[in-house]
């Protein structure tokens, strides 16, 4: 179903605005939930935006010997994430960039962001950057095939890998969400969301010990505007991953028809869904510790196995 150009542009602009403005608020909500559950007062919902504005006022620094790879990485991360925010179905199922809403294009854009971060970590020449890059690539090498395979399992029944069509199909036949293929794909994709967004048990987002860092180690050398862009980029990636999971498996409320009321409803439901999934993720993190590094390939191999089982059950079990 294609909309008229003004409405689809409006939908895409609304999505981008919500994700850019709301991603730091999502991070704040998750930190606040963790703080309250751990008996602390927490820093408040505006703290990430305060941090970002403080960092934007500071001077960006590049290490000696680093090249354009280091300085370009924040821009690459934020721009690839903005493209996904405009194209993928969060508020509305169609966008003016309909070709980019294909599953494989979105997965490739996510990978572009991961690779940019890993290359920047290597470019610093420091030991911690290299360590963080190798760990990031270990996780990405196992998580991307799972994304592809689980997405393939969902697109077999629909006949197309366009994410908007997947969401519309799930809206029309809700009993398809309870089939073994969709349940296995849901579990596999949740593990990938946790791994790609760098949350416990794969990576501790609040750690300050360099030897336990994964994402933090690659951005250790950034300061000022570059650091602000990297933090915004990782918050946006978290919001996008949670939004994709929520819309693929809880698709109610996404706007399928053009109009101000449906777009507004779609925006509200998208914000509520992402916030709820973030709260669930943060609450489950309170009960977990970060796993040792050799167990993380086991977790990701298990999620890949779930993806393969999802594909085979979508082919062989009607």
């Amino acid at each position: 179903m294609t909309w008229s150009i003004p409405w689809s542009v409006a939908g895409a602009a609304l999505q981008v605005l919500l994700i850019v403005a709301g991603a730091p608020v999502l991070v704040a909500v998750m930190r606040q939930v963790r703080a309250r559950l751990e008996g602390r007062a927490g820093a408040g919902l505006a703290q990430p935006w305060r941090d970002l504005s403080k960092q934007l006022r500071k001077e960006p620094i590049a290490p000696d010997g680093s090249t354009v790879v280091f300085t370009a990485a924040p821009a690459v991360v934020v721009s690839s994430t903005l493209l996904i925010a405009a194209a993928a179905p969060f508020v509305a199922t169609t966008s003016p960039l309909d070709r980019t809403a294909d599953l494989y294009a979105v997965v490739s854009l996510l990978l572009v962001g991961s690779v940019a971060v890993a290359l920047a970590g290597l470019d610093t020449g420091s030991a911690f950057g290299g360590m963080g890059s190798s760990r990031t690539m270990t996780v990405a090498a196992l998580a991307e095939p799972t994304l592809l395979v689980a997405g393939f399992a969902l697109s077999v029944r629909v006949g197309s890998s366009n994410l908007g069509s997947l969401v519309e199909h799930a809206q029309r036949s809700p009993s398809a969400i309870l089939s073994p293929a969709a349940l296995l794909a849901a579990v596999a994709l949740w593990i990938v969301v946790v791994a790609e967004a760098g949350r416990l048990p794969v990576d501790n987002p609040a750690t300050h010990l360099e030897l336990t860092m994964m994402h933090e180690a690659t951005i250790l050398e950034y300061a000022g505007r570059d650091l602000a862009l990297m933090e915004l980029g990782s918050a946006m990636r978290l919001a996008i991953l949670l939004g994709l999971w929520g819309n693929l498996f809880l698709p109610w409320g996404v706007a399928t028809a053009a109009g101000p009321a449906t777009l507004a409803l779609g925006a509200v439901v998208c914000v509520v869904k992402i916030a709820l999934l973030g709260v669930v993720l943060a609450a489950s993190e309170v009960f977990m510790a970060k796993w040792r590094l050799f167990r993380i390939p086991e977790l990701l191999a298990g999620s890949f196995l779930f993806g393969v089982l999802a594909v085979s059950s979508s082919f062989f079990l009607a």
Partner: protein
Amino acid sequence: MSKELFSQLLYLDCGGLLLSSVLMLWRRQLGALITMLTAQGLLLSCLATLLGTQVGGTELYVVAAGILVLKAGVLPTVLRRVLAESRTARETQPLVNVPASLLSAAVLTLVAYGVSQPLVELDPTPATHAAPVGIAMVLLGFFVLVTRRRALSQVAGFLLLDNGIAATAFLVTAGVPLIVELAVSMDLLLVVLILQVLTARLRAEFGDVDIDELRGLRDR
């Protein structure tokens, strides 16, 4: 019970069976393996009950009750007694490490699906469409039996193999005759009891049941 509800429940049950077999490859704790076997016993008796509602007659219900008692009651109790006496509670150093065994499980499941396609085409009903799950459980049971070092893990693999054979028999032939099921269950119980006694004797003689450690001759 309508056809759609029956197929949905059947596929959910078979999905649970496959999931518990995969988790047996993933978890290292030996107690978790026994929990998975208990879960599989429960799911198998649910499978027999579901098929009994479609086929009619009381034979399948009796078989379901027997499976519940044996595979979800007696065998896990015997295995937990063996576990309580052993020194270590986890499987260390399997011959194939956990990520590689999970990827092999993916390959084995695809092989099971490929191999059972001619079987499904002979009689395409909802139950036979799920037959690959039983064959996948058989292959995974062989895999656990071959690649684990602890005697208890190998017994768990053998029981997974038998659960897979029972699941295939139920799905493909809509039940086995009561007398065959009784005979197989009796054999199974005897094998597990013999293995328990053997394990206890091994531990008393050599102090450990790691099969690889038993290679050398000991002078006592």
